[in-house]
């Protein structure tokens, strides 16, 4: 499948002058839009029966996941394989990190095998950047601690843009465990840069300090936070945070911060409900809302995830594949 060159590329500018994708921070709005535009073609492609574009054939993609993951890992694996890459997964249980090897030694070991792209998830903020500094190949952040999860934010933006036709001017309420969420941090920056008004809704114990400085409006009352929202993005509440440490109990949380029909009535009538998954039905979201095909975009988000990741894998390896017009990017 051929696609027309990006207008910015045709004009001689570099549409994505970054060696890695470590976060949304540091990207320009037109670079974010470029990735979203690139992802569009793969949505249709994935739905079709003729999937013969193996542009990453011969390239080795390592998915190094130092933190457990099912869906993100699967999404990256399918994205790589759809494009013909040789995909190798390194899970936390199979890694020598458990045997006491330092993270950088593991990184150097992986680097010595000459992969063409490494996708990394790690439980510590900044870990992916640390590894990227030591590696000679493109690195894609699949989530580092509470810091960033750029492809999740991109897939959320793509879902919103396809459903709503735009991002600019929309009111997006992100609800739940903002404090520990890398998804929220990436989304603040991405949706904010693309012109959305972002709100966060959470109990005070799950709101990070000075979150307003990041350009969002914060609410501790959910009904107020949902008022007139075009998009409601629910976040998963980790079970280990529920029993008294940050909130007193699951039932109290659901009573005040769970997404129910009654609450959702405060939002815009054509509200879009999103969740990065996996969902805790009855904790942060009522099951019937999650299953509502009109309002819920939960499965669509998963679909967009593969498309966005295919676009990122493609863009990050263009220089390496000698694609015309893709110069060496400054480190």
């Amino acid at each position: 499948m051929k696609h027309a060159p990006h207008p910015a590329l045709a004009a001689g500018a570099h549409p994505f002058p970054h060696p890695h994708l470590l976060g949304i921070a540091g990207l320009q709005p037109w670079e974010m839009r470029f990735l979203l535009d690139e992802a569009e073609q793969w949505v249709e492609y994935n739905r079709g029966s003729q999937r013969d574009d193996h542009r990453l054939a011969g390239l080795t993609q390592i998915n190094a996941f130092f933190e457990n993951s099912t869906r993100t890992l699967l999404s990256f694996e399918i994205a790589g394989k759809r494009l013909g890459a040789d995909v190798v997964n390194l899970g936390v249980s199979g890694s020598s990190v458990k045997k006491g090897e330092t993270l950088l030694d593991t990184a150097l070991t992986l680097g010595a095998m000459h992969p063409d792209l490494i996708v990394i998830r790690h439980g510590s903020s900044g870990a992916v950047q640390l590894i990227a500094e030591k590696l000679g190949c493109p690195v894609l952040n699949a989530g580092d601690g509470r810091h960033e999860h750029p492809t999740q934010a991109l897939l959320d933006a793509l879902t919103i843009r396809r459903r709503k036709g735009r991002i600019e001017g929309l009111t997006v309420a992100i609800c739940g465990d903002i404090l520990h969420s890398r998804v929220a941090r990436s989304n603040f920056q991405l949706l904010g840069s693309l012109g959305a008004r972002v709100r966060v809704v959470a109990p005070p114990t799950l709101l990070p300090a000075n979150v307003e400085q990041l350009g969002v409006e914060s609410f501790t009352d959910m009904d107020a936070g949902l008022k007139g929202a075009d998009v409601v993005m629910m976040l998963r509440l980790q079970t280990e945070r529920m029993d008294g440490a940050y909130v007193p109990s699951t039932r109290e949380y659901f009573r005040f911060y769970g997404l129910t029909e009654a609450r959702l009535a405060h939002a815009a009538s054509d509200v879009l409900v999103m969740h990065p998954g996996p969902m805790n039905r009855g904790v942060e979201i009522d099951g019937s809302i999650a299953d509502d095909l009109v309002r819920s975009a939960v499965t669509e988000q998963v679909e967009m995830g593969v498309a966005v990741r295919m676009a990122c894998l493609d863009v990050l390896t263009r220089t390496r594949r000698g694609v015309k017009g893709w110069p060496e990017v400054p480190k």
Partner: protein
Amino acid sequence: MTPLYLKGGRVVCPATGHDAVANVLLADRVVIGIGDAPPPADAEVVECAGRVVAPGLIDCGVFRAEPKACHAGGITRIVLMPDQQPPLDDPALVAFTQAMGKPGVWVHPLVAATRGLAGHELAEIGLAREAGAVGVATGRGAIPSTAVMHRLLSYARAFDMVVVTHAEDAALTHGAVATEGDYATRLGLPAAPAFAESLAIMRDLRLAEATGARLHIRQVTTGEGLALVRAARARGVRVTAGITPAHWLLNETAQAGFRSFARLSPPLRDDGDRRAVAAGLADGTISIIASGHDPRSQEGKRLPYADAEPGMAGAETLLALALSLVREGALGLREVLGMMTAQPAALFGLPGGSLSPGSPADLMVFDEAAPWRIDGSRFAGAGNTPFDGLPVAGRVHLTIKGGEAVWRI
């Protein structure tokens, strides 16, 4: 031993108030005198014109004794933290440690306040004092239990030993690696509020006031904490405050890019607190400047920010960074040197820190204006400094310990 004759330097001694061009004669490991007498025939004459001759620095609260790094930084005595392996919680360990730096650097150990620094049972601080401990320290962290801290301060009072504390509320700062605020939120780092420091200071000041004990807060890094210290001083609480250069020269933005060399304990603060620390130095609330020397290996630092060990190597940069206060006009040279010589000597009752006749011949000769660039890879010891690449001025040319030159460039 050949007598040394330091000729024609600007001799600055904060303890005696001397600040004038003069000659200094050292013999038999002590200072013989300052004046304009000609050198004795058998003395080695060291030309010091254009340079400053001052007492060797006394560095309060370092975590590892590294003689080479100390000499390069003009440090001749260190007050060693009890956070060693094993912790200095036993008189025998104190006695052993005290001897380990001789003759190059004299180590004055602080005894651990509690066994194994665990914060539960008091260590034998009286016996440790007899073995050479110059004070008691809670180590890298505060003692979480108010009851234990109360007992410690009352008990230490009987021996008139200074209790050196780390001011961070243990429960609030558990797991935190940064100061709460939008910067830490952006980076996604586990953070604790800056008032975790003032909470700890409030408690310790009240306990010190109740028991009459002497308290030295090794680092006061927030405006709120300094205000508490000021107020307590005014009502007669026996408290002193210290600082390391990082907290008046850097703010939280030094953590950009997850640079683990900027992972310190307490963590770097916002710029308001940084400026408050600078003001606290200028008005004398903070009376002691130390390096906080805590060299870390590559294994300890080349980790994701939150997993990296806190601490910075500081012995070699202490003088140059402290001299920035003089250049800015915040303090005079004599005052700044006093915070690293006479003040710590007085606080812990140490010999040295003075050029009065009969004092130990511990000196340094430095060029106040000599420019250089901090380069961690060229340090004598570990190079984990958040100041890597910073241009500074002030270079030690000669360090003399017990009348012998131990460092010369």
